[in-house]
């Protein structure tokens, strides 16, 4: 399988990327690691006229502390994040989740920004940034804006990003001292999770429990009002609408959400 024809353009700075996006409008897609976009293009589910490759934009590859936040450049790869000392100390959930995405080869290419912008509810990172209370920094022709993760996932594969905008940074409050846990259930080692649960402190993010990455709000409310882990985890599937598929029915996924939430909260 090969993608439909497109014009490949490589940029090496954010400004250059924004200039290309501004001139191409709806006709361009941004290529980061390509591990969400290229498979879609090979299946012809996406057929952009222009592909703007931001791979060489080194200014978007970093993890550092900024006051009370850990800030992560959008082009940081899973393999970088999984062993980053700053992340391991101050936002260990994100390092741990990054180490469990796909396989080693995928983690050598896939980026945190690419995964978030792709906004697949079956991916691990969106639920992890929801549980981490992250803020996503987006830059466009009109300057920068900050979008809380809770407002970033609008629908299946849909974000508030304009075609002229680029996700440049993920900001996460330091999680020093907060308990965390991550559980996922897959059919085969490298598969997307049937269901996954990410926990930081009292926040719970759910993987693949609906069309968008979700917070388990009933569980969070129960925890906040002093419920036990077992009581709170029993509410994990409330208000969700998980996909119903032959290999994992909606009812089975609700069951998994409750069990995995209990495990993740217990670890945390």
């Amino acid at each position, binding site marked *: *399988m090969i993608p439909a024809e497109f*014009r*490949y353009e*490589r940029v090496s700075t954010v400004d250059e990327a924004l200039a290309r996006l501004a001139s191409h409008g709806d006709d361009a897609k941004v290529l980061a690691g390509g591990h969400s976009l290229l*498979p879609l293009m*090979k299946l012809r589910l996406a057929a952009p006229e222009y592909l703007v490759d931001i791979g060489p934009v080194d200014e978007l590859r970093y993890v550092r502390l900024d006051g009370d936040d850990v800030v992560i450049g959008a082009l940081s790869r899973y393999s970088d994040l999984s062993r980053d000392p700053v992340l391991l100390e101050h936002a260990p959930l994100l390092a741990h989740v990054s180490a469990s995405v796909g396989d*080693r080869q995928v983690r050598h*290419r896939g980026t945190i920004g690419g995964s978030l912008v792709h906004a697949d509810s079956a991916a691990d990172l969106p639920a992890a940034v929801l549980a981490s209370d992250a803020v996503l920094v987006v830059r466009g022709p009109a300057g920068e804006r900050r979008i809380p993760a809770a407002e970033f996932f609008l629908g299946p594969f849909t974000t508030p990003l304009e075609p002229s905008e680029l996700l440049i940074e993920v900001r996460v409050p330091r999680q020093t001292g907060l308990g965390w846990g991550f559980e996922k259930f897959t059919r085969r*080692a490298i598969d997307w999770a049937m269901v996954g649960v990410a926990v930081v402190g009292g926040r719970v993010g759910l993987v693949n429990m609906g069309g968008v990455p979700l917070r388990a709000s009933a569980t969070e409310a129960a925890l906040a009002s002093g419920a036990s882990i077992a009581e709170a985890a029993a509410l994990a599937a409330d208000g969700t609408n998980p996909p119903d598929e032959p290999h994992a029915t909606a009812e089975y996924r609700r069951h998994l959400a409750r069990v995995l939430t209990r495990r993740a909260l217990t670890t945390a």
Partner: protein
Amino acid sequence: MKVSIEVNGRPVTEEVPDRTLLVHFLRDTAGLTATNIGCDTTSCGACTVLLDGESVKSCTVLAAQADGHAVTTAEGLAGPDGALHPVQQAFREQHGLQCGFCTPGMIMASVSLLADNPKPTRDEVRAGLEGNLCRCTGYHNIVSAVIDASGQEVDR
């Protein structure tokens, strides 16, 4: 576009369509056919090569993305005198293959794994090769081969 990739230490430069995948560049342009196309969906790992020393699935990388970078395929592992790479030698000695289709990718993934973790446990080898599927061996001898290549005693 004009793509120039250092393949196994040799520069390969060619004008190719923008949509050319790295695996096709290696097989059709560079003429190196050890790298197999298996699932073509980033799952099976048969097309694994090293890009700047790190394992990647070359069916999910554009040739254009590798422009200016270095790629190593299975053909690039043996020494100039033809001596097998330690991982190749171990796959032979431990009978780490049957039909052989997954082998070039499996070996490249193993080389990358050992670069990061020179003395892995059997469990770490299994986890480290989760992105490579073999339908023949049941993996047991593949794990033994990687352990052997790492210079550790093979404990079956």
